[in-house]
C-alpha cells in the first residue's frame, strides 16, 4: 500500500513520552549530564507502529491534517520518521508539522540560552531533515510542506528552508488550506512559498474533522481559541469555538479503539468549555467530565491540557466545582492526581495590566497575585498538580516587576507544583518584539530563576512518587532522579556563573 501524502515529524514529537505528557517538556531541553540517546529514551521513546509504519499514537495536530486530507479523498497517512524510507520512492507530497522546529519556542529557547547547549528537539528535527529518506524524496521532486504552531520559526531559518527544499510554509489552522495545497501540488501547479491562514479561513466547528487514528496520550480538543486576549499568546488570535460533546466523545472512542485508554482534554482553558464569557458554568463542565470518564472507565488516565488560574478560583468559590469534579469524577485508586498546565507569567500587577489584562478576569488585574495563590491552594487541596509557567523578559518589564514575581513565587511555596521559567519569545500580538536571551538577564532575573528552581526541586520528588507509580516506570524514574541529583550538584556553580556574567 502506498500513500500520495506522507505526514510526519521528528522523534521528539512522534512519541507518547511513556504515557507521561510532562516528560515532553524535558524533550525540549539540551541533554545535560546524560548522553543524547539516553535523554531521548527518557523523554521520547519510539511509538508502536503497524506494518505500514503508521504510529498507533500521533500528535493531534497531525491527526487533524490527516483527517482533513483523507476526507477530501487523498491517500494520506501519518508515518513514523523511522519508516519514511518505505515511501521514499512513491510519496508525492511530504507534510511536516512541529511545535518547535528549531527550539526557538518556549521553553527550549531558554534552556538553550542558559546552557549554551543545543536542545534535543532541534537536533532531532535537523536529523530528520537530513535523513536519507527525506533527501531521497526531495531529489525525486516530492513537494515539501511544513506547518504547525512553530511555522513562524522558518522565517528565521530561511537558508535551511532553501537548503532542504521546503516548498511551502503554512502558518495557522491547517484543515482547509492543506486540501487546497495538496490539490495544487498533485496537479503540478505553482505552490505559495508561504501562507498565513487568516480568521476567514479558520474552520468552523462543523468543518473541524474527527481524527481517524489515536492521538498522543488520548488528547482530544474540546475548544479552539481563547477569549482572554493575552498579548504574548498566538492562540488568542483564533476565533473561539466549542467542540460539541458528541464529537469529543467520538474522538475518545477512536483513541480507546486503538488501545489508548487515557484522555487529555485539550483547551487553552478547560474550565471555559461552554462558559458564560470568562465565567465557568458548572453544567457543561460536569457533563463533559461525566461522559468522558464513563468512556475511559476507572483505570483510564485523565488530565487537562491547560486551565486558567482565574477560572479555577471562580469555579471553586462560586460552585465548589473543582472539588466536585475531582472527588466525584476524577480521583480514584487508579487516578491519584490531575495534571494541568497553568500560566502565572508574572507576579506584577503593573505588567499584568499591560500584557494580559483579562487573564485575571472576572477578577481585576489588581488582584492577580491573590488569584494565583488562591488557585494554587485550591489545586493543592484537590490533588491537581500544576506545571506553571512564568515569563521573564516581557516587553516593558522592570526590575520592580521581576521582584513582584519573586515575591509571588515565595507565596506559592506551600503548594505542590512545578514552576517553569520561560524567556519571552515574540509571539501573538507581540510577534515583532525582541527575544529575551541570556545576555539580557539582570541579577533579579537570576534570583527569579533560582527561586523557581528551588520551588520545583522541593516538590519534584513528591510529585514523581504520585505521578509515576508502578514498576514499568522504574527505569525512567531512576534516570530522572539521577538527572535531578546531577542538577542539584551543578546548580550553585551555574548560578554563580550566571551572576558573574550579569555583573560584567
Amino acid at each position, binding site marked *: 500500500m502506498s500513500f500520495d501524502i506522507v505526514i510526519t515529524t521528528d522523534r521528539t514529537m512522534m512519541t507518547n513520552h511513556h504515557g507521561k505528557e510532562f516528560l515532553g517538556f524535558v524533550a525540549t531541553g539540551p541533554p545535560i549530564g546524560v548522553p543524547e540517546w539516553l535523554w531521548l529514551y527518557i523523554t521520547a521513546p519510539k511509538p508502536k507502529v503497524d506494518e505500514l509504519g503508521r504510529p498507533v499514537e500521533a500528535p493531534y495536530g497531525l491527526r487533524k491534517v490527516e483527517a*482533513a486530507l483523507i476526507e477530501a479523498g487523498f491517500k494520506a497517512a501519518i508515518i513514523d520518521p523511522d519508516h519514511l524510507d518505505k515511501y521514499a520512492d512513491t510519496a508525492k507530497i511530504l507534510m511536516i508539522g512541529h511545535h518547535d522546529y528549531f527550539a526557538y519556542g518556549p521553553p527550549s529557547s531558554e534552556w538553550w540560552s542558559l546552557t549554551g547547549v543545543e536542545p534535543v528537539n532541534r537536533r532531532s528535527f535537523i536529523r530528520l531533515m537530513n535523513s536519507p529518506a527525506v533527501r531521497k524524496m526531495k531529489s525525486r521532486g516530492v513537494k515539501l510542506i511544513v506547518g504547525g504552531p512553530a511555522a513562524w520559526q522558518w522565517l528565521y531559518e530561511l537558508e535551511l528552508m532553501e537548503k532542504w527544499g521546503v516548498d511551502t510554509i503554512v502558518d495557522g489552522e491547517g484543515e482547509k488550506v492543506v486540501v487546497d495545497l495538496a490539490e495544487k501540488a498533485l496537479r503540478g501547479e505553482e505552490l505559495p512559498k508561504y501562507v498565513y491562514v487568516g480568521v476567514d479561513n479558520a*474552520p468552523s466547528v462543523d468543518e473541524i474533522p474527527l481524527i481517524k487514528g489515536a492521538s498522543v496520550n488520548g488528547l482530544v480538543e474540546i475548544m479552539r481559541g481563547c477569549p482572554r486576549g493575552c498579548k504574548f499568546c498566538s492562540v488568542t488570535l483564533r476565533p473561539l469555538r466549542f467542540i460539541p460533546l458528541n464529537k469529543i466523545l467520538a474522538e475518545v472512542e477512536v483513541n480507546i479503539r486503538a488501545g489508548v485508554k487515557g484522555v487529555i482534554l485539550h483547551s487553552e482553558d478547560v474550565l471555559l468549555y461552554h462558559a458564560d464569557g470568562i465565567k465557568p458554568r458548572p453544567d457543561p463542565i460536569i457533563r463533559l467530565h461525566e461522559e468522558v470518564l464513563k468512556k475511559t472507565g476507572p483505570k483510564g488516565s485523565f488530565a487537562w491540557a491547560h486551565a486558567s488560574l482565574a477560572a479555577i478560583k471562580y469555579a471553586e468559590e462560586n460552585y465548589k466545582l473543582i472539588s466536585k469534579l475531582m472527588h466525584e469524577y476524577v480521583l480514584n485508586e487508579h487516578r491519584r492526581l490531575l495534571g494541568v498546565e497553568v500560566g502565572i507569567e508574572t507576579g506584577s500587577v503593573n505588567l499584568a495590566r499591560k500584557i494580559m489584562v483579562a487573564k485575571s478576569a472576572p477578577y481585576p488585574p489588581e488582584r492577580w497575585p491573590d488569584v494565583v495563590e488562591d488557585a494554587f491552594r485550591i489545586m493543592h487541596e484537590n490533588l491537581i498538580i500544576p506545571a506553571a509557567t512564568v515569563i521573564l523578559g516581557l516587553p516593558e518589564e522592570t526590575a520592580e516587576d521581576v521582584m513582584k514575581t519573586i515575591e509571588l513565587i515565595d507565596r506559592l511555596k506551600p503548594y505542590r507544583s512545578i514552576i517553569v521559567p520561560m524567556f519571552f519569545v515574540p509571539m501573538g500580538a507581540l510577534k515583532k518584539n525582541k527575544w529575551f536571551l541570556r545576555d539580557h538577564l539582570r541579577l533579579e532575573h537570576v534570583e527569579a530563576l533560582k527561586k523557581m528552581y528551588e520551588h520545583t526541586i522541593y516538590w519534584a520528588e513528591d510529585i514523581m512518587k504520585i505521578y509515576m507509580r508502578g514498576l514499568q516506570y522504574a527505569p525512567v524514574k531512576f534516570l530522572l532522579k539521577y538527572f535531578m541529583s546531577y542538577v542539584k550538584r551543578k546548580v550553585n556553580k551555574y548560578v554563580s556563573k550566571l551572576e558573574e556574567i550579569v555583573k560584567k
Partner: protein
Amino acid sequence: MEPISHRSRVYKRPRHVVVVVGVPDESIVKELNTYLASHGREGLKLIIATREPSSRVLEALRDFLLSNIAFTIEVYSVSYERLREIIGGEGGLVKIFASSGVCGELPEDLAAKVCGR
C-alpha cells in the same frame, strides 16, 4: 490526480493580487502594510517576481508577515518569464509595485509594463 470525492471544507483563496517586481524594499513594505490594512479582509496574494532566491524574498517580508495576525496572505516567488503570463492573465490583479533599481534590469517589454517606460 484522482477525483476528489468529498469537499466540505473550502479554502477561500485570496481575492486581491499584488505583484512586486524585485525584492521588496522598505517603501514597498510600507505600501503593503497600508494595502493590507484597507483591503486585507478578503485576503492578499502577493507575487514577487525576482531573480533572487525565495529565501531573500521572505527575509525582506519577514516583519510584514509576522505583524499580520488576521488576514490570509499567500506569497509566491516567480521568475520574470512567469511575470509576463501573470500580467497578461492573472484575475484579481490590483496593483504592481517595482522595487527601487529594478526597472533598469528588466527586459524591455516588462519594463514598459511595470515601470511605464
